[in-house]
């Protein structure tokens, strides 16, 4: 078992205490307006049940669940009647509903999660589920608290007029930003990836799904205020459909990634490159790319290109000894790279991937950043793999000597940092 960083423990403990306190309070004082609580609770359960698999790092995995929870936090009126449920009841209902919706996943997650063939996700299985639940509870508590404070103080003279909607939207925006920051922090302390790019990706995701979630939360709470609980099924249908297409999208992305990895393995099975080479280069390239603060789309391009960087060797009649292209003359390296680019162009992946593969053999000043990373990491992998215990250090030294022309110095240093972190983690495990 990995030791959890203290921030993670703190966040989980805070969410748990809050949920337990809210539950105790609600049990003691009874449920105000049980119909609304039940309806929105069911919505959250449905949303969590149909949540999409995969990464919970930056994107909201269960938009419908989030929207239902936020709508309950912002529910000021039901068919014109003011509601009475407080912050604690909101938190209790949402926590119970989210947990109920997550139960099937908790039960199913006995074994290790098999997820594609390429790692790179910060938190898996139980960890990601616990993070998700904790974030949900804290976000709802924040939204409900702000809302109730405004609502009871009568901060806006004319409640329930046109200005109400922008106010709610602003409140949810605040909540969403706080939630995104918390999510980025959690990933940061788990993985040590730089915070800036993580924050940027989290905030970018807010623009897409996040905005839809906030808008739905506002619309649902306002619609319930006008039309009663009937508004919920009417309006949750579109978002449920969105969530289902999200799931299908995630599934097809997974099998797509697996297929690319298979294509990459073709060179290994054909005996052109050693087993696992493409995968190792992909993992290391991703780590370096993250260190350098690439965006998510850039990382995907980098990953696919790293997986397929040797594919050009398939077109050779005679294999290169041990697939070690870094030791070949520059002209031949370039020829193999161009052949590879031609194969990659056939595959329907982003044309940028083909560009990275094609230009992996050029001097770094003429390369796009993805190709620089793949070139350096590939050379490191080839030098380090059979060179004994101090192979990695000597390989990095060799790259440092090549920084005048072949490898970008910043990338080599970033690679060295990634490797050092990997060694520390390994030592931590043994010690």
């Amino acid at each position, binding site marked *: 078992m990995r030791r959890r960083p203290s921030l993670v423990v703190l966040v989980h403990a805070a969410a748990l205490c809050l949920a337990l306190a809210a539950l105790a309070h609600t049990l003691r004082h009874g449920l105000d307006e049980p119909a609304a609580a039940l309806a929105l609770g069911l919505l959250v359960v449905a949303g969590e049940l149909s949540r999409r698999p995969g990464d919970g790092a930056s994107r909201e995995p269960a938009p419908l669940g989030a929207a239902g929870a936020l709508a309950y936090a912002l529910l000021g009126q039901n068919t014109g009647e003011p509601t009475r449920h407080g912050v604690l009841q909101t938190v209790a209902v949402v926590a119970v509903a989210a947990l109920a919706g997550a139960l099937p996943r908790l039960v199913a997650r006995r074994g290790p999660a098999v997820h594609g063939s390429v790692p790179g996700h910060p938190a898996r299985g139980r960890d990601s589920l616990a993070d998700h639940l904790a974030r949900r509870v804290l976000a709802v508590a924040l939204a409900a608290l702000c809302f109730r404070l405004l609502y009871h103080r009568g901060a806006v003279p004319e409640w329930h007029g046109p200005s109400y909607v922008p106010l709610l939207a602003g409140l949810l925006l605040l909540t969403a930003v706080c939630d995104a920051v918390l999510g980025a922090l959690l990933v940061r302390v788990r993985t040590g990836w730089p915070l800036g790019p993580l924050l940027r990706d989290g905030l970018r*995701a807010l623009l897409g799904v996040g905005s839809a979630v906030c808008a739905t939360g506002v619309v649902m709470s*306002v*619609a319930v205020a006008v039309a009663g609980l009937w508004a919920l099924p009417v*309006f949750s249908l579109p978002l449920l459909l969105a969530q289902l297409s999200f799931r299908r*999208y995630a599934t*097809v992305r997974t099998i797509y990634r697996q*297929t690319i990895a298979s*294509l990459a393995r073709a060179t290994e099975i054909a005996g052109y490159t050693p087993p696992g080479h493409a995968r190792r280069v992909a993992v290391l390239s991703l780590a370096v790319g993250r260190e350098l603060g690439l965006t998510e789309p850039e990382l*995907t391009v980098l990953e696919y290109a790293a997986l397929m960087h040797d594919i050009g060797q398939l077109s050779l009649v005679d294999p290169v000894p041990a697939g070690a292209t870094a030791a070949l003359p520059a002209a031949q390296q370039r020829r193999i790279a161009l052949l590879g680019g031609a194969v990659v162009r056939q595959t329907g992946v982003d044309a940028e991937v083909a560009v990275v593969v094609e230009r992996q053999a050029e001097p770094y000043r003429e390369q796009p950043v993805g190709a620089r990373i793949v070139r350096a990491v590939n050379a490191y992998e080839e030098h380090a793999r059979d060179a004994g215990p101090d192979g990695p250090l000597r390989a990095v030294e060799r790259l440092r000597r090549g920084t005048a022309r072949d490898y970008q110095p910043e990338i080599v240093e970033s690679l060295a940092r990634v490797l050092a972190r990997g060694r520390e983690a390994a030592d931590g495990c043994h010690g």
Partner: protein
Amino acid sequence: MRSVPAWARVYIACAVLAALSCLAALPDVRVTWWAVGLLAALYAGCEQITRCPFLGHRAPEGMSTFFPVLLAGAFLLPPPAAALVAVPGALISRVEQRPRWPRRLWRAALLAVAVWAASRVHGALGGRDAVAGPDFPYALLPAGAAALVFCTVLTALDGGIAVLAERVPARHAWRGLFARRLAPVTVHGLAGLMMAVLWRSPYGPAAALLVLLPMYVSCWVFAQYHRERAAHQATIRALVQAVDIKDGYTRGHSERVGQASVMIARELGMTDERVELVRFAGILHDVGKLGVPTRLLRKDGPLTPEERRIVELHPEYGHEMVRGIGFLGEARSAILHHHERLDGSGYPYGLAGDRIPEPARIVAVADAFDAMTSTRSYRRARPVAAALAELGRCAGTQFDPVMVGALVRALERHGWHPVVTADGHGPRGNVPPRSVPLRAETGS
């Protein structure tokens, strides 16, 4: 305009006249003009927004139809005013194919008539009061009826233009069109109802606008899913083409084996899901040849025993390659066992009879069938009948008679129309043509 057939022009002119007659009553009704203007501008904006990049990705083309605004108009406004809402947006909408202006005109007329009809039905059922109330659940009835009418009118008119302008046979023009449209129109109708209710509420149009955001994101995700799927299919094809590059004579072979395997599987009454797996098994059956040296695959003349042993490793190589592709499931066993023979003398494991997985027995028959009916460097193609006779002769020893029988029946019923011609430029089954820009979207 020259490329539009005469009858289609007459048809469009009729539709425009009908739309104008819908709008003719405008002076007689009391209209809140700012609402009409706002909704029309909103609809036009929704039509335009598909031109703008969203989050770094271009919005997909299929999203140009944005009905919630139109239906909200139908629920809020009197019929002529509701019809007017659709016109400006349709006239400036993005049209990919030429001729552009007849298409835009047609679209404006079509939407105006459909919205008018929907609004008429909604009003007749007392929907206006139900929206203003709001009176739930009664409000759902007029809204549902209006969505149904909207969908019906769209389908009826669209089928007509398909027959007249695109020359689609009348039998096919309407087939499945209504069923395909009904579900999205219903969802858009619900969103439109929500917009209308909020518009009339004290919270005003601002709340109604927020309804559009989730709808937009929902459509966008759906389109992304389709793009990613297309990219995946292209990747599968790339795997197959990589085999083709190595193995000179099998150009198009893999896809044809996939096609023949599907015919057999359908004949056996397999579920759609299994048929799809069998298709992948057929397409990918030789993928392991990537691991066999090119020299051996292209060698003229007989192979030595040693060379033969190496070539016969390809089912195991293929199985190893696709091991990581989760969805293939049963298809992986077909890749491993497609050279087994019913009498147990095949490779790699020498399985016999029912021990050979069913998909593998299908692919074996399809593989042999295509090998015989396609031209190879060392001999000409045999006619289909001769190939079937040969398969029948080997049924029971090499091939499963059930599969051979199924292939014979399927070919009697549908004939043999290989989707990929020998030079590899034909249409490729359900794999999209290369002209469609395939991009691996990464989401955000």
